[in-house]
């Protein structure tokens, strides 16, 4: 198995994008999950549909909508241009694309964690003098930590594999926006690229298996700690 400089750049970029996307999505994911679990408001069903939409929508559609929004003539594009930020066909666009596509997975895991918190624990903390944001930080956050870890690792893994949305908003520029899946796509379409493609596939599988193992180990550790 051999990896070219370009392949190594793709692996590095994939990692960078996946980590950034996960970190970017975490606060929003936590806030969204909290809204859906602990707050009652009008249009909750709508939010639910919206959050889960990327799960069922073809990633290409998401990429295209992001391109329209952040493109030269979109609202987001105009704002970014005013701020002097290079976005489309840049690794930053790949981060936003990955964050959007992986978002439902993150929210689902955090939500599962939050739903298992007994409401009376929150009532107890409030009656003991905690404000709602104090209760959020000292009861909800630590008790949904497992969900946060599980969601982050799933989202990270999903981001590593992001293809459809990324290729539309970030393009497939070697060394700049080419991630592992995009590189494999390139190799697959050239007759001599089979072994190169297979090498990257092996890297992909190793990374995924590693993350899923880590996911299990951390989950187990947290479970042990909780029951200690």
């Amino acid at each position, binding site marked *: 198995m051999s990896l070219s400089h370009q392949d190594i750049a793709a692996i590095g970029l994939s990692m960078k994008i996946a980590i950034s996307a996960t970190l970017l999505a975490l606060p929003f994911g936590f806030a969204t999950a909290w809204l859906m679990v602990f707050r009652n408001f009008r249009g909750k069903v709508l939010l639910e549909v919206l959050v889960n939409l990327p799960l069922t929508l073809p990633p290409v559609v998401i990429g295209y909508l992001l391109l329209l929004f952040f493109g030269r003539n979109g609202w987001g594009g105009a704002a970014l241009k005013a701020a002097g930020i290079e976005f489309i066909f840049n690794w930053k666009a790949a981060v936003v694309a990955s964050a959007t596509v992986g978002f439902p997975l993150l929210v689902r895991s955090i939500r599962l964690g939050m739903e298992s918190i*007994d409401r*009376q*624990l929150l*009532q*107890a903390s*409030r009656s*003991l003098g*905690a404000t709602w944001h104090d209760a959020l930080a000292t009861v909800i956050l630590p008790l949904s930590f497992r969900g946060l870890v599980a969601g982050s690792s799933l989202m990270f893994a999903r981001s590593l594999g992001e293809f459809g949305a990324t290729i539309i908003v970030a393009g497939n520029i070697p060394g700049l926006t080419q991630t592992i899946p995009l590189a494999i796509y390139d190799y697959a379409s050239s007759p001599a690229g089979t072994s190169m493609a297979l090498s990257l596939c092996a890297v992909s599988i190793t990374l995924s298996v590693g993350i899923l193992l880590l996911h299990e180990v951390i989950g187990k550790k947290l479970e042990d700690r909780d029951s200690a």
Partner: protein
Amino acid sequence: MRLDIDIEKRLGSFSLKMKASLSGERIGIFGASGSGKSTLVHMIAGLMDPDSGELHLDGTCLFSSRRNIGLAPEKRRIAIVFQQAMLFPHLGVKANLLYGYRRCRPENRKINPEKLIEVLNLQHLLDRGVNNLSGGEKQRVALGRAVLANPRLLVMDEPLSALDDALRYQVIPYLRSVSEEFRIPYLFISHSVPEMQLMADQVLDVANGCITGISTPDDLARAGMASSPRGYLNLLNLERAHLHDRLFHYPWGGGTLIVSDGKTGEGSLFELASRDIILFRKNPEAISARNMLKCRVGEMFDSDGRKGIVLESGGEQLVAEIVQSAAVELGITPGSTVFAAIKASAFRRLG
């Protein structure tokens, strides 16, 4: 403590409408499950808003739909002990205990944590996690946590219901000693008459979302005498026992009570059912029951065809229960003298 309640609330098909003014330090809220007790205290604590009405605690407005006031729960300083201990599972015993204390303003911190830990006998648990405590230990930590928040009012929402009988009576002495030691006014919610007798001075009766009356625990116990399976339960705090012939002799009233399951060295709480007392007009000469008390008949009361007889001896009282016709045949009237026979095994030690 003074609490003014005038609220309404609808929850699906259940509707609650309550109006009462309470003043006292040890108030019981009594009613069957589903009667609205918990809903009431949730609204008092601010965990649920009434649809309309007013709530005032010691002159502070907690809620008023008219003036659009709804004080946040953390500003009410009303701590709750739930049926399940509801300890924070990610914190240890000590951090649980101090959760409310740390959030209490320094000028309101009147209770010394060390003193409380001593009263609740929690020293040896401080460094433990909360997930492997026993049910009784958990409830003691929950009680300590609530008290250490230095609340103006402590709400105990059926704190003993999740415990089995033995544990319940292990926790009750702690509840009592905490309330005596730290003098925090409380609302004690329960559907158990003996718990009311032990924990409350006055009782708010709740049924079907309404307040049906304010009475004393003794009234409650007397009213339920005929319908409850064991009759009126006399609760006796007995101490200074000495052991003689494998029986425990406790000084009581003008004489001695002989009990088979007692304890020397420390005081114990005993329960004696009104149906376990047999009355005689004259002193029977030979009888197997170990206790034969000469008593004066104080009050007599009716409960669904049964007669409750209040027996007095040396300043102490016991309630015995007989049927109407027995009262007539024996000619028992207030002021008359009777002999009460009680088996030594009829006293049930609670804790």
